[in-house]
């Protein structure tokens, strides 16, 4: 059976970080265009990331010897809750902060830590994650991109796809095959840090249905990788990737993605005193769900802070959270449509259109709904 999520409070040492972050964000958000805010953590602004880094707010969980703040999972929760709750553009450093940094810290060599971690903390090294391939989506273990042994390290050939912000990142942590064949599944996979400026790397942007181009195809053609690019143990890539997922799936980014739209809608209702009974009930329903999800997410954070890897609990938060994120745009558009002819501000309509168009990705990125529910079923003892 699944473990119980118990109401947990955020310790004071972590809460003490909140006022300063809030103050900084309040000063900065007036400079963020409305459309950018609707993009939530898809919003990319390298200057913003560097501003955060200057204040010591990138890679806060990394050890002090590498420039991090040595803070715990609760502190990072408070920091990113303020950033996401205010819909700031964190995409530039987001992956490095959430996953790549902790991964290198956990599995990397001393030399790798000394090289990458300070650059992550200074927001000088942005990372992307190379997982999906044209023939490997949910079936991640079937990846075909392959690194083969050379005299001086490894040679990489293959292709990744749907790699978010590869074109704006410096490095990719790629899950590739180092032995066996696709049929060998979880065996023979390894993780490498690929310098995206290396010869043989080609990045091609893919435009999405909103007009943005955030994800990419990345081609590797005889890319030479040094010995020092392997992260962790050769052949242990699958286990390493799985451990990342608890970090990737339980955070506030799984229920605050549509919060800018919700805030815009509330502001519109308040300004025009136009909240009818249905709008009031809907606003309440969304908050009711948000409060519950936040309580669940803090409970998972407590497990992370204890050093556990609550992969199932994280799957649960992500599935429920993305369901809410996808409910918000449809429910708001339904509500706005109750009064044909009312003047709805363009900014609200553009945010609404953007979130409605992009929200199917919320339950795709980081593991699809069906995969997550399959994991939960396994946790229930059904598989």
């Amino acid at each position, binding site marked *: 059976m699944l473990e119980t999520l118990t109401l947990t409070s955020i*310790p004071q040492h972590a809460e003490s970080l909140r006022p300063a972050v809030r103050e900084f964000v*309040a000063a900065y958000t007036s400079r963020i265009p409305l459309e950018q805010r609707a993009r939530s953590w898809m919003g990319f602004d390298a200057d913003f990331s560097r501003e955060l880094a200057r204040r010591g707010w990138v890679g806060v969980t990394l050890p002090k010897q590498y420039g991090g703040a040595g803070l715990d999972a609760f502190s990072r929760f408070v920091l990113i809750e303020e950033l996401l709750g205010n819909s700031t553009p964190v995409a530039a450093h987001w992956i490095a902060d959430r996953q790549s940094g902790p991964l290198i810290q956990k599995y990397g060599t001393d030399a790798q830590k000394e090289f990458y971690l300070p650059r992550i903390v200074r927001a000088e090294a942005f990372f992307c994650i190379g997982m999906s391939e044209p023939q490997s989506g949910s079936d991640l273990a079937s990846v075909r991109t392959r690194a083969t042994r050379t005299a001086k390290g490894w040679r990489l050939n293959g292709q990744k796809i749907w790699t978010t912000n590869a074109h704006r990142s410096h490095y990719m942590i790629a899950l590739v095959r180092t032995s066996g064949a696709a049929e060998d599944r979880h065996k023979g996979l390894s993780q490498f840090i690929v310098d995206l400026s290396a010869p043989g790397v080609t990045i091609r942007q893919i435009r999405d249905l909103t007009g943005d181009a955030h994800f990419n195809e990345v081609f590797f053609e005889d890319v030479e990788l040094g010995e020092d690019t392997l992260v962790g143990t050769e052949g242990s890539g699958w286990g390493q990737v799985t451990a990342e997922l608890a970090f990737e799936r339980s955070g506030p980014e799984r229920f605050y993605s549509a919060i800018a739209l919700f805030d815009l809608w509330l502001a519109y209702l308040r300004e025009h005193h136009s909240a009818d009974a249905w709008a009031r009930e809907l606003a309440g329903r969304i908050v009711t769900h948000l409060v519950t999800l936040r309580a669940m997410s803090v409970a998972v954070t407590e497990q992370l802070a204890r050093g556990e890897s609550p992969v199932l609990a994280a799957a649960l938060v992500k599935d429920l959270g993305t369901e809410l994120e996808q409910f918000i745009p449809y429910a708001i558009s339904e509500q706005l449509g109750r009064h044909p002819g009312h003047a709805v501000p363009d900014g609200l309509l553009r945010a609404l259109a953007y979130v409605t168009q992009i929200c199917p990705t919320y339950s795709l990125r980081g593991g699809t709904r069906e995969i997550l529910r399959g994991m939960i079923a396994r946790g229930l003892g059904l598989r």
Partner: protein
Amino acid sequence: MMDSIFYDSFDRLLRNISTPQAIRDIESGESPPTLEEQIVESGFADAMLDEDCGGAGLHMGEAFSLFFLCGRHAFPLPLPATMIARNVLARQGIDIPEGNIAISAAPVAHADKAVECRNVPSGKLAQWVIVPHALECAAPCDLLLPTDGAERVETGVYGSLQAHLSWSAPHSAGVVIEGAYPWLEVAAAMTAAQMAGAMDTVLNMTVRYAQERSQFGRPIGKFQAVQQQLSVLAELASASRIAAELGCQEPAKGTSNTLAAAVAKARVSEAAGTVVSIAHAVHAAMGITEEYDLQLHTRRLIEWRTDYGSAAYWNRRVGDAVLSADAPCTLEYMLPTYFSGSTSD
């Protein structure tokens, strides 16, 4: 403070006395003296009383676990309401009466000063009922009324323990409870906790059934279509539990904010509809039978969904609060309103 020994012993007690047969007996109208005696003997009805009054001094946030267990075991007596009421009465210096105490939602107004309470949860079993806003006074005027002497009308709903209760002369029959206690909100949070407990049982029963029942040559739990539904059930049970726990927390010192209770009742009541649907879908016809125990829990969940206000009612309450707040964003509204007790070290 409640420790796990306290929790475990209550769990064990209920498992022993709240048997499916005992529940059925009470629902079919047999008098419940044995259960009542066992509860009185156990002392759990006084769990929330101060320790110097012979209780265990549990506050609502701690009593949550006991309410949850009452729901898990479908305990048919209004023990959670009795625990809450006994503590409030004691604090008001009112002599605590013997017997079960039910909590009513606000009564139907009557011109002739009579009081009528519709669909009182556990109204068939209670010796006493707390009736909020029973009298028209300057301040909120709540009454503790005996059911002895009240007109008690059954609802006619199969297996329901609710009843309509009315009193022709409530002022002379009742004891005034001062202090404007938020009965509806607290009863809503309490009910949410019981619902979360019931969902826990429903989840376990349904998973077990899916593992035991075979079709097409294998347990139905091996089919992805069934697995995905059970995962949703598990998600909702988990969300409901923590929402109910949040709803049972005392408001921060110096405030009387009861919106966390609103969140709890709204979230859990919304989830309950889906939980019941999935559980019955997986159990198929077997789950609909009187003989199989699932119905002891799902019928209760269906009733609890609307007791003390449905999801629509409480969402509206939350929505009114959100829209009248002047916080610059939802986050800044949410944290102080629902998580104000949430800093410690």
